[in-house]
């Protein structure tokens, strides 16, 4: 014990001053810990805290990591408790950008497409938006493609035999192909199928499939329709296609039948084709009970309308068939030419028809074939047909040939007349036929008038009569009296016959003398000889116009001396019709 006491004393002796300092320091530290002094300590830290943070932040990440959760908590807490203030503070910044993004979502969407809005905010919408970003397509297109049931993108109207594109329409926003090429290729494909598979058999290519595109083909003899369809069209679309093609083949009946490559007339078919461009999108929105009632009412209304229009549609369908049959019939009828035709809207079919004067009435053609003309409104335009059938009807009506005449119209346009007929008819027929449309010439060598032959025969007899005169006299020698009488009687007979044929006969008498005597005397005596014969004729009551000529001795024969054969007369008979000489 003493040792310890001794040690204490020694320590106090050696460290007395230091111990006192230590005691004082301890007192100060105790004072620092006490509440009253916190203010002072804070003041101390505050002097250096900013610099301290700055120094540490530069040195490493520890300060950030230490502060992060704390700050996080602070902000969260603040948002929870002070949202209104925050929103207010942030709105000027966020508002425009939100509006912009919504506007973006609607841009490019089809107006009619009401689902877009719903989609824009749904999860599915987000997925599609991503797809749009990825593929670079407009969002609206992506939406449409995903909700598309079917869409008719293009319609081609094609001439069957040649594969030539008659008309072509394209849906809005669809990239269209070269219609001429597509039409030809589609036709080639069908030709190929025809050659390889269905050789001989009836059967047509109805559709081609490629990915989610289908090419639907609807065919008739002269033309066909091809549609490029995305998705699966309802079965009624095939009906629609068929009906459209039927309409077109009626309307373009004549253009299609005579097609030579002119496609201008088919421009007008575009509205028909455009009516086929349709699309349908799926709509799977749940229907509310109230909606169901409304739908039910709508359905009932629709049924009524359907009943009304359905009957109309059926009537129209029947009319269309009738029209097709009727137009086919009429276009086969000679002298009728069908032009514009279309349904009128009040249950009839209107037809502009070119009609030759000698063609049958279109109404009669229909009636004769058991069709009802009441379904048609014909507007006839007069025209002249060159069809051989029409040309011969026109001939018959115009020439009124007697039953003894046969008219033959050759393929070369030459009308051949044969048989017998009054000469007047023959001459008139030749003249008129030559002027008639569709006739290029008249061959009348095979037709004659028998009475005309008789006249000619009589004229020959008269002309061959020999009458000679004694020298210096103007009365015929006795032995010629009988034949002269006969000739004169013939002339009287001819005069009567010709009068019955509407012809006239004239007689010319040439008197001759022989070469003896003076020339003056010879003229006188030759003239007197001709006149004697004329007088004989008049004495028989004839009123034939007679011309007499004294030709002296110049034409008689012998140039000198007395000669019985030179003292004679000659007779020439001519037949005239309206001043035109028929026979010399």
């Amino acid at each position, binding site marked *: 014990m003493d040792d310890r006491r001794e040690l204490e004393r020694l320590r106090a002796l050696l460290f007395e001053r230091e111990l006192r300092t230590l005691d004082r320091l301890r007192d100060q530290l105790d004072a620092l810990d006490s509440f009253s002094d916190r203010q002072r300590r804070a003041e101390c830290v505050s002097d250096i805290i900013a610099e301290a943070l700055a120094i540490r932040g530069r040195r490493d990440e520890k300060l950030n990591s230490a502060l992060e959760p704390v700050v996080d908590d602070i902000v969260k807490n603040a948002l929870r408790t002070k949202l209104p203030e925050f929103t207010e503070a942030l709105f000027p910044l966020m508002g425009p950008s939100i509006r912009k993004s919504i506007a973006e979502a609607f841009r490019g969407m089809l107006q009619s497409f009401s689902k877009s809005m719903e989609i824009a905010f749904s999860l599915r919408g987000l997925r599609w938006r991503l797809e749009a970003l990825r593929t670079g397509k407009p969002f609206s297109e992506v939406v449409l493609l995903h909700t598309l049931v079917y869409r008719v993108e293009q319609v081609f109207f094609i*001439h*069957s*035999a*040649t*594969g*030539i*594109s008659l008309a072509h329409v394209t849906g809005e926003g669809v990239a269209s192909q*070269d219609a*001429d*090429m597509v*039409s*030809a*290729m589609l036709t*080639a494909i*069908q*030709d*190929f199928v*025809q*050659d390889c598979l269905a050789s001989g058999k009836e059967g047509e290519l109805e559709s081609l499939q490629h990915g989610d595109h289908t090419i639907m083909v609807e065919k008739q003899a002269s033309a066909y329709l091809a549609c490029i369809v995305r998705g699966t069209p309802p079965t009624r679309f095939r009906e629609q296609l068929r009906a459209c093609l039927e309409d077109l083949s009626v309307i373009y009946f004549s253009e299609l039948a005579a097609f*030579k*490559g*002119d*496609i*201008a007339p088919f421009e007008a078919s575009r509205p028909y084709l455009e009516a086929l461009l349709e699309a349908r999108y799926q709509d799977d929105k749940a229907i509310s009970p109230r909606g169901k009632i409304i739908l039910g009412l709508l359905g009932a209304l629709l049924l009524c309308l359907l009943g009304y229009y359905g009957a109309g549609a059926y009537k129209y369908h029947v009319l269309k068939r009738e029209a097709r049959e009727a137009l086919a019939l009429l276009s086969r009828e000679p002298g009728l030419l069908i032009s514009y035709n279309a349904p009128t809207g009040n249950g009839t079919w209107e037809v502009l028809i070119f009609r030759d004067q000698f063609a049958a009435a279109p109404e009669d053609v229909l009636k004769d074939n058991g069709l009802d003309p009441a379904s048609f409104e014909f507007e006839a335009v007069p025209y002249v047909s060159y069809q051989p059938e029409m040309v011969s009807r026109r001939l018959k009506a115009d020439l009124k040939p007697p039953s003894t005449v046969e008219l033959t119209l050759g393929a070369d346009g030459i009308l051949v007349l044969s048989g017998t007929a009054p000469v007047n008819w023959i001459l008139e027929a030749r003249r008129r036929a030559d002027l008639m449309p569709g006739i290029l010439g008249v061959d009348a060598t095979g037709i004659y008038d028998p009475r005309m032959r008789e006249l000619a025969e009589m004229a020959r007899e008269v002309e061959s009569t020999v009458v000679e005169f004694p020298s210096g006299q103007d009365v015929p020698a006795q032995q010629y009296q009988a034949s002269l009488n006969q000739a004169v009687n013939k002339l009287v007979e001819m005069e009567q016959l010709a009068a019955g044929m509407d012809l006239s006969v004239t007689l010319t008498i040439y008197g001759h003398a022989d070469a003896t005597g003076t020339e003056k005397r010879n003229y006188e005596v030759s003239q007197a000889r001709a006149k004697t014969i004329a007088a004989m004729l008049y004495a028989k009551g004839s009123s034939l116009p007679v011309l007499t000529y004294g030709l002296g001795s110049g034409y008689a024969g012998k140039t000198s001396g007395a000669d019985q054969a030179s003292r004679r007369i000659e007779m020439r008979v001519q037949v005239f019709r309206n001043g035109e000489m028929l026979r010399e």
Partner: protein
Amino acid sequence: MISKKICMLGSFAVGKTSLVQRFVHSIFSDRYLSTLGVKISKKELDLDGTAMTMVLWDLEGKDRYTEVNVSYLNGAMGFFVVADGTRRETLDIAMELRDKALTLVPGQVPHMLLINKADRRAAWEISQDDIRDIVAMGLPVIETSAMTGNGVEYAFTELGKAMLGQ
């Protein structure tokens, strides 16, 4: 607006496709890619003021032993038979094809014989006498070269005009 369907007929490798390429795209390639089935091209041209669209059906080459795909000739409004001047037998085949075609299209359908590869005349096996005989039959003959373009435009234009006259 007039559209006309025109067919190219002829033996293998006579240059049907090359003639169409030359006429439509003004190009020529010496690579030989045999046509299978039919290849369709089109060209719009102006014939003395009348616009015409020619739809060209370039048919696969035929020899004596293969049958023509008759349906492709349906409705043809004009056609060319093509022979290769350097191969005599292609002329005989061309004439046979012409006879065959005329049983399938109306006789008055305008058509012409093209003797192609005129740029290699030194190697021709078809003589001027052969050509004269054919012209005397009433079949127009035009010598062409799809390589240089000689006679090509002329041939198509002539056929176009003949079709307009129909």
